[in-house]
């Protein structure tokens, strides 16, 4: 066994960390959150130049990474700076396209930062259930016409191309019969975009006979979605880990400097032990991310169980870290002006992306029976 990163990944991590340290402090970041699309397109271009978008994808998709360890390194760094640009939707939709194959031209544009992807899969009634799709598609020559509603589509407002799930057969909860389509924006795609509580861009979509081209095989979209979700879930667990590390470090630093009753509050044993618990749980979290990242290419059940285990922990540990960070900071941790609250918001809101703690615990149990 070897837990060390290879030379390429160390360089990737260093490059990205240095760039973010120089260009992405919390005030700058909160400024980006107020721009159209809740992020900076200029930054997105720079991420493309640095090769960070390409690091999400394997070579056969035009990238130069795409392994679990690449996702871990990149997203942990993104989490440390609460990066707003559409890495998550790019990874989700890009993994679908690259696994299905046949979209080399578009993927090249995506990796170059010229085209932006989003995955429109969740629906108003689907909650976290990946197989629940009510949207429908019917064939019309070599094009398909899609009807339905998609909800909380991360990056849906700024995307140039949408990967949309729709049913071509089966009932609303069946994993069989889900097909995926590439859809360009048009007047048949209604978009209501908005910001999330933690500052990211998302949208509600209504597809009214929108034209789409089939991705992969008809009715076989579920496996592609599951694979994309596995990669993206691992990635946001790493992102959450990065945010949690910062929240922990800020809290420990504050404990050393904030004085009450004549001494730094870090001298109080009750607080020391709570942060020792945070430290232990963060190491557990890191191991869970390693387990998931290292098994992304394993057999389905192994991969999915490790991914669900990590996301389960991300929700639980995340709540502990976010709440302790605010509590130990006291009033200052509750303010917009001070950074730790923004980290807490991202950590908690990640529980609402791609399945929460309960969803993944249930899934972990179910996968263990199969």
């Amino acid at each position, binding site marked *: 066994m070897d837990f060390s990163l290879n030379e390429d990944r160390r360089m990737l991590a260093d490059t990205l960390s240095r760039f973010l340290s120089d260009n992405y402090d919390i005030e700058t970041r909160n400024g980006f959150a107020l721009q159209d699309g809740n992020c900076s397109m200029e930054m997105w271009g720079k991420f493309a130049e640095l090769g960070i978008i390409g690091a999400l994808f394997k070579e056969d998709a035009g990238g130069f990474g795409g392994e679990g360890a690449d996702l871990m390194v990149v997203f942990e760094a993104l989490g440390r700076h609460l990066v707003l640009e559409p890495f998550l939707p790019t990874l989700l939709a890009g993994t679908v396209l690259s696994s299905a194959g046949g979209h080399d031209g578009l993927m090249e544009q995506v990796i170059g930062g010229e085209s932006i992807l989003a995955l429109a899969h969740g629906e108003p009634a689907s909650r976290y259930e990946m197989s629940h799709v009510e949207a429908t598609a019917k064939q019309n020559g070599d094009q398909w016409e899609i009807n339905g509603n998609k909800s909380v589509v991360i990056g849906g407002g700024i995307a140039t191309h949408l990967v949309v799930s729709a049913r071509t057969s089966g009932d609303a909860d069946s994993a069989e019969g889900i097909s995926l389509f590439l859809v360009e924006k048009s007047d048949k795609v209604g978009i209501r975009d908005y910001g999330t509580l933690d500052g990211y861009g998302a949208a509600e979509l209504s597809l009214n006979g929108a034209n789409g081209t089939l991705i992969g095989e008809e009715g076989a979209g579920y496996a592609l979605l599951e694979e994309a979700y596995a990669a993206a879930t691992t990635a946001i667990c790493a992102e959450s880990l990065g945010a949690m590390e910062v929240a922990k470090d800020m809290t420990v630093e504050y404990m050393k400097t904030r004085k009450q009753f004549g001494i730094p509050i870090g001298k109080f044993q009750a607080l020391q032990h709570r942060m020792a618990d945070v430290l232990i749980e963060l190491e557990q979290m890191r191991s869970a991310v390693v387990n998931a990242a290292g098994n992304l290419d394993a057999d389905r059940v192994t991969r999915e169980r490790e991914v669900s285990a990590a996301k389960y922990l991300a929700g639980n540990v995340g709540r502990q870290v976010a709440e302790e960070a605010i509590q130990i900071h*006291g009033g200052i941790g509750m303010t917009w002006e001070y950074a730790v609250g923004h980290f807490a918001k991202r950590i*908690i809101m990640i529980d609402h992306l791609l399945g929460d703690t309960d969803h993944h615990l249930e899934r972990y149990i179910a996968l263990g029976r199969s």
Partner: protein
Amino acid sequence: MDMAFSSEENSFRDEVREFLKEKLPQRLANKVKLGKRLNKDDMVEWHAILNEQGWLATNWPEEFGGPGWTAVQKHIFDEECWAAGAPRTVPFGLNMLAPVLMKFGSEEQKAHYLPRILDGTDWWCQGYSEPGAGSDLASLRTSAVRDGDHYIVNGQKTWTTLGQFADWIFCLVRTSSEGKRQEGISFLLIDMNTPGVTVRPIILIDGEHEVNEIFFDDVKVPVGNLVGEENKGWTYAKYLLTHERTGTANVGNSNAALERLKKIATEQKKGGKPLAEDPYFAARLAKVEIDLNALKTTNLRILVEADSGAAPGPESSMLKVKGTIVRQEINDLSRRALGPYALPFSSEAMEDGYNEEPIGPEYANPIAAKYFNNRKMSIYAGSNEVQREILTKTKLGLS
């Protein structure tokens, strides 16, 4: 032992319900239930309605205009108000300053300020915390120096809730640096319109403006605005805090929030069935309900005992700790219940006049924001760590 409410208590509950049905404006109740932003006018409106009924100052003795209720009656009133979606009353004048004035204020102060609290002439805010004095309140540094008939006040207060609306602030100020830190503190009433008083908003992590910093720059305060004796303010401050902590279990609020959560859990669907039937979520709901039901009884046990003579002592620290844990757990489950719809957030949608179609269910927008906002509960009014210190010293004798 008799756990049932008496027939008098039950008819009191009916009376309260009848009053709320008739007098609580539906517009206000809807705002509260949907988590919309309450403005000053909303709070003033409800304050006046309660005052007209004689049910505003529920903790005041009858001689000053209180209704003379028992602890159980107050509990029933609180529970019914929250259940009906009544705005909370602003506690700074009513429940914090008033008891101090009644016990330590001069006759003139009582005669002047107490009626003005009731009729809403004066909106009070609290000047306790400072940037360097949070949990360690006695380390406060805002100074008041005697100069003829005035004190000259300099310094800074922080976390001043609703200070942007206030006419007056009651302040702990340092009048002496001799002896123990607690011995040089005085309790001073300051008109917010005095030259040299500046209010600066503090925006919280959910984007809301409810707390402020207050700066004092050579502010001239008449010596007649001193409450009690100079340098005895710490005694009054502690007296105020024990009153701040009555009602601290927050069971009425938690009860109403749990009922709303249960309703959400029946409306939200998981796998086609109500979320409330999902074993994972049902277990979470049951656990917090069990805690809340026990807390209701703990609360009443402590309050009834206090009612029959004993002042609510360090027991109120238990109510603060457990009360905030339960309330925050309900906030946590509420955001979980929403699934992905916990993510969208619009500050504009918190306003009364917002007419656009909601994103997701109508009730969703404020819920995750409220989860973060209510993290303040375990920090304010003596952090839960400070409450635990009080308990280890007083109840456990471990110091």
